[in-house]
């Protein structure tokens, strides 16, 4: 098995350092350019050649470290001796690659003290390319191999490598950008010092101001955000509970249709609801026109601001709360309620004294999930917020606005991060107490108690109108795609679709995608399709490592993985442009930055669905495979993966669909070449071109439903005889 040997990875590192071009090539790599030894241009050369021919001495440590690792990579000698070489060689190699990358940027030395030490450098370097990446990967695996040879991870190289890869990718694509961004808080502004400008930024009255109490002015964005998130979470949780009770505890005929509601937030592009509300309640909306026509009262712009954003968010996130609460209500053992009733409690008393208290941790969880989503939400506030600023939109305007104040963006992002983390930690604490939801493994007997009549009445009275309203909003939103100008010219038309998705035949018979939206649509589908399998495989690998392996630092790894979920999208977006604008990883403007963003934003969903599936999989199944002489990898491939098909579907669908509908992070990362659908739509919205925006949204919804169906088909279902295993979509955030 040469492909899995340490020697293979040593050769990879050697190839990266000696043969392949080290830096990123502006015009892409040609086949001839792959052999970068003896090139005329230093930038197109390998590290070794740059050091030898162009006097770039900072590559010598890299080359030396890789050479040092060779005795460890050869399959001879004692494991202990080989481990020493691999650890030192690989470790020093990683260090040398990182240090030389950080030390020299596009303008020479990155830090003044280096210039003082080595003198002015009459040179610069670009971002790391193919060679550098391979060398990094090779060194990383050599280190993990060395660790496995030292007996860590039960001596399992595969596990060790997987953990190493996970740690490195989290460090590179989450920790480093977030820290870089937080560092921006400390950049001096004007002639103020570091401390003074930090204080000035943090103590900004635009953030903390309380002027709205008692007067008609807006409060600081912090309070705006907090108020909005609290109201949204409370309303959505109450509504979600009503829906969940109806679906699980009544014989309501439309129960199944109501369950479909839970799929909506997954496939809805982020502006559909905002647009729908504008078309109903906006200045030229249906309601406003009817009211003006019948009573002559102008309702005006009330939908823009707190009211509208709150309404839109409640519409958007109620299905999420609903999904979480279905599980909570279903998880309550009927036996407890039956016990209560045999103890002569009335239905109402049973509900108040048993059912409701049992649901409290679940309700708290749903509340916090919605709170975090509202906090991170960007689509609704940007469409409906008007002058009502929240953190996510303020960050956006700090970066793209005239001021280009990254320091301010960093401070706002830092505040958002802290609030998000607090909610996240609180949520873990709530769920960590095992919520009382009974998972005994024993089959529960008994029937759930019917709802007491008063509760039933309230649930129906709240949920039914809301469900109808939701349908109206969606219908209106989609209807907007088929009329010429909403509110003024109601002529039915397909012109919006035509402008977006026109196809013409050129003179030579070729198809021309002349519609304005084709480019962004193709890009979006392509990038989402690339990102989805990567997300799913890394996520499932992480899930497997976390549930099946015991090693030092496992909890820390799990925590940091889940932490990436708590970082709001806007924060990640700002962090990515700040970090990847400059070498050593100069990927701004490429497809890579978008893919990385999708993968690491959606990773926790893959991990969660994997962990959930894996914990239902008897651990002795993999152990049986291991005792039956299968390698760890074979056990994973032949036993674990086939049994995880539902989780794979979930992870694939989720990461694909979320990659297509996300906006908060990518809005910072798109470029002319790689434009995403959501960003295209938002630009149309900002220009007031609602028709085209809505037409595009409609197409996206249809596409995503098709994608979900396709992926379900492609992966197939597990063959387990009579038992059926439905794929469950977990609740997850969008932003």
């Amino acid at each position, binding site marked *: 098995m040469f492909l899995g040997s340490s020697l293979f990875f040593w050769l990879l590192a050697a190839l990266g350092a000696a043969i392949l071009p080290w830096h990123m090539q502006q015009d892409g790599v040609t086949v001839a350019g792959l052999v970068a030894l003896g090139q005329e241009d230093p930038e197109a050369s390998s590290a070794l050649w740059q050091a030898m021919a162009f006097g770039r001495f900072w590559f010598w440590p890299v080359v030396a470290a890789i050479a040092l690792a060779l005795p460890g990579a050869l399959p001879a000698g004692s494991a202990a001796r080989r481990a020493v070489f691999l650890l030192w060689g690989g470790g020093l190699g990683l260090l040398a690659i990182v240090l030389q990358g950080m030390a020299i940027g596009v303008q020479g030395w990155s830090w003044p003290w280096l210039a003082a030490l080595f003198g002015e450098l009459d040179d610069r370097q670009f971002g790391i390319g193919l060679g550098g990446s391979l060398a990094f990967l090779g060194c990383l695996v050599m280190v993990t191999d060395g660790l496995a040879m030292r007996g860590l991870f*039960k001596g399992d190289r595969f596990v060790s490598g997987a953990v190493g890869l996970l740690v490195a990718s989290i460090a590179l694509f989450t920790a480093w950008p977030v820290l870089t961004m937080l560092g921006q808080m400390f950049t001096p502004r004007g002639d103020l010092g570091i401390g003074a400008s930090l204080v000035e930024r943090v103590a900004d009255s635009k953030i903390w101001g309380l002027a709205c109490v008692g007067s008609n002015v807006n409060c600081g964005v912090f309070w705006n955000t907090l108020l909005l998130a609290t109201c949204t979470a409370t309303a959505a949780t109450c509504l979600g509970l009503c829906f969940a009770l109806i679906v699980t505890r009544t014989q309501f005929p439309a129960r199944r249709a109501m369950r479909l509601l839970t799929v909506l937030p997954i496939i809805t592009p982020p502006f559909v609801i905002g647009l729908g509300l504008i078309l109903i309640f906006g200045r030229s909306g249906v309601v406003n026109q009817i009211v003006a026509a019948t009573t002559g009262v102008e309702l005006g712009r009330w939908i823009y601001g707190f009211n509208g954003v709150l309404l839109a968010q409640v519409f958007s996130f109620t299905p999420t709360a609903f999904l979480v609460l279905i599980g909570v209500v279903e998880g309550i053992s009927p036996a407890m309620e039956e016990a209560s009733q045999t103890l002569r409690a009335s239905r109402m008393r049973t509900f108040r004294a048993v059912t409701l208290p049992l649901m409290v941790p679940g309700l708290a969880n749903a509340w916090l999930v919605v709170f975090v989503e509202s906090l991170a939400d960007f689509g609704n506030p940007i469409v409906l917020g008007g002058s009502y600023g929240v953190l996510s939109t303020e960050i956006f305007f700090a970066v793209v606005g005239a001021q280009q104040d990254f320091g301010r963006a960093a401070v706002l992002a830092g505040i958002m991060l802290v609030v998000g983390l607090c909610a996240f930690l609180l949520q873990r604490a709530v769920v960590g107490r095992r919520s009382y939801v009974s998972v005994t493994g024993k089959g529960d007997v008994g029937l759930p108690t019917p709802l007491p009549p008063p509760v039933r009445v309230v649930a129906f009275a709240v949920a039914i109108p809301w469900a109808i309203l939701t349908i109206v909003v969606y219908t209106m939103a989609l209807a907007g795609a088929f009329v010429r100008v909403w509110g003024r010219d109601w002529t039915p038309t397909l012109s919006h679709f035509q402008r977006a998705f026109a196809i013409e035949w050129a003179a030579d018979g070729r198809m021309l995608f002349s519609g304005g939206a084709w480019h962004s649509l193709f890009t979006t589908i392509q990038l989402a399709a690339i990102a989805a399998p990567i997300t799913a495989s890394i996520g499932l690998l992480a899930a497997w490592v976390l549930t099946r392996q015991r090693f030092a630092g496992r909890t820390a790894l799990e925590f940091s993985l889940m932490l990436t979920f708590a970082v709001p999208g806007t924060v990640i977006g700002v962090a990515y442009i700040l970090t990847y604008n400059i070498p050593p990883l100069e990927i701004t403007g490429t497809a890579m930055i978008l893919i990385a963003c999708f993968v690491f934003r959606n990773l926790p969903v893959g991990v969660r669905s994997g962990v959930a599936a894996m914990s239902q999989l008897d651990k*002795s199944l993999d152990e049986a495979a291991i*005792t039956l002489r299968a390698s760890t990898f074979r056990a994973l491939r032949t036993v674990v993966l086939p049994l995880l098909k539902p989780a794979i579907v979930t992870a694939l669908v989720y990461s694909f669909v979320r990659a297509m509908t996300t906006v908060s992070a990518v809005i910072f990362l798109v470029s002319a070449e790689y434009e995403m659908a959501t960003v295209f739509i938002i630009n149309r919205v900002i220009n007031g071109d609602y028709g085209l925006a809505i037409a595009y949204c409609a197409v996206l919804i249809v596409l995503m439903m098709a994608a979900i169906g396709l992926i379900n088909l492609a992966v197939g279902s597990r063959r387990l005889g009579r038992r059926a295993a439905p794929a469950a979509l977990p609740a997850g955030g969008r932003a």
Partner: protein
Amino acid sequence: MTDLPRLTGAEVRLQGVGKRYGQVQAVKPLDLVIEGGTLVTLLGPSGCGKTTLLRMIAGLEQATEGRLFIGGRDVTLLPAGERNVSMVFQSYALFPHMSVLDNVAYGLISSGMRKRDAHARAEVALETVGLKGFGARLPSEMSGGQQQRVAVARALVLEPQVLLFDEPLSNLDARLRRSMREEIRALQQRLGVTVVYVTHDQAEALAVSDKIVVMRNAEIAQAGTPAELYTQPQSVFVATFMGEANHVRGRVLGTAGGRADVMLGEMRMALPDRGIAPGEADIVIRPEAVRLRREGGTGLSATVSRATYMGSHTEYHLTSAVGELFAVSPDRLQRARPGETVSVDLDPEGVIVVRP
């Protein structure tokens, strides 16, 4: 009937093997030799470390101290797949997405055998456990007992030197347990493989084992043949774990000529000398050694507090000067009644002095 070839069961030798999870000592360093071709049971209450010990032999857990030899080869650091052992799991761990035949052939294909040969061998293994013709089924389409046999066939087909069982019968009902344990024993004898068998059921251990290792609190309490453990337990724990036993206190007055002079309440008995020094001693009395006499006995005086008719015998709870006694008596017709005073004699065969 075609059968798998006879195997050469290897000796398993543990030298100071122990396992520690952080602060918790799951298995204290212990020495143990399991002879080739024998069936040895690890018996003990839950949490005593028996399963951890088995998993260390399997290679699913790494010993944190000591060395482990299988057939003379040091396997301490070898992963599970390279130890030439097979394991039957408590849950059977049959791969639910593979047919029975694919399950049994899995290990052979992992070891690099061609699929066709592996399937032929798997057929033989299925026949060995009496499941000829079931290969195309899925595990979920078989009964618990049949699944158990598939698990055994899957382990046996690799012709391991050592076969490990982790509480293999705990998911079966009582009747099936009896017949399966006999089948496992017969198979082991027929194929000559070394078997290490974990259970918490002493009846199961007595029925199948050449040797039983009783474990308690992460260490070996006593090891020996079933008869040794039953008749010569070295501690109250082993005595009470291996069948019912009354535990009372008595005195060893002195030893002479291979006999120990023991005082039990008012009663003086001569018991085999087991090297217990004179003084206070723990004494274990098997219930079947307690003989009741309703009239004119000369033994301990006791009062019947409860009498339970059990069909083939009667069970008594007695209150005596040495403490509560539990007795099993074959008399069925002339039962003593609660409240009645009886005289109790003890059969020296069933009275054992153990170290305090």
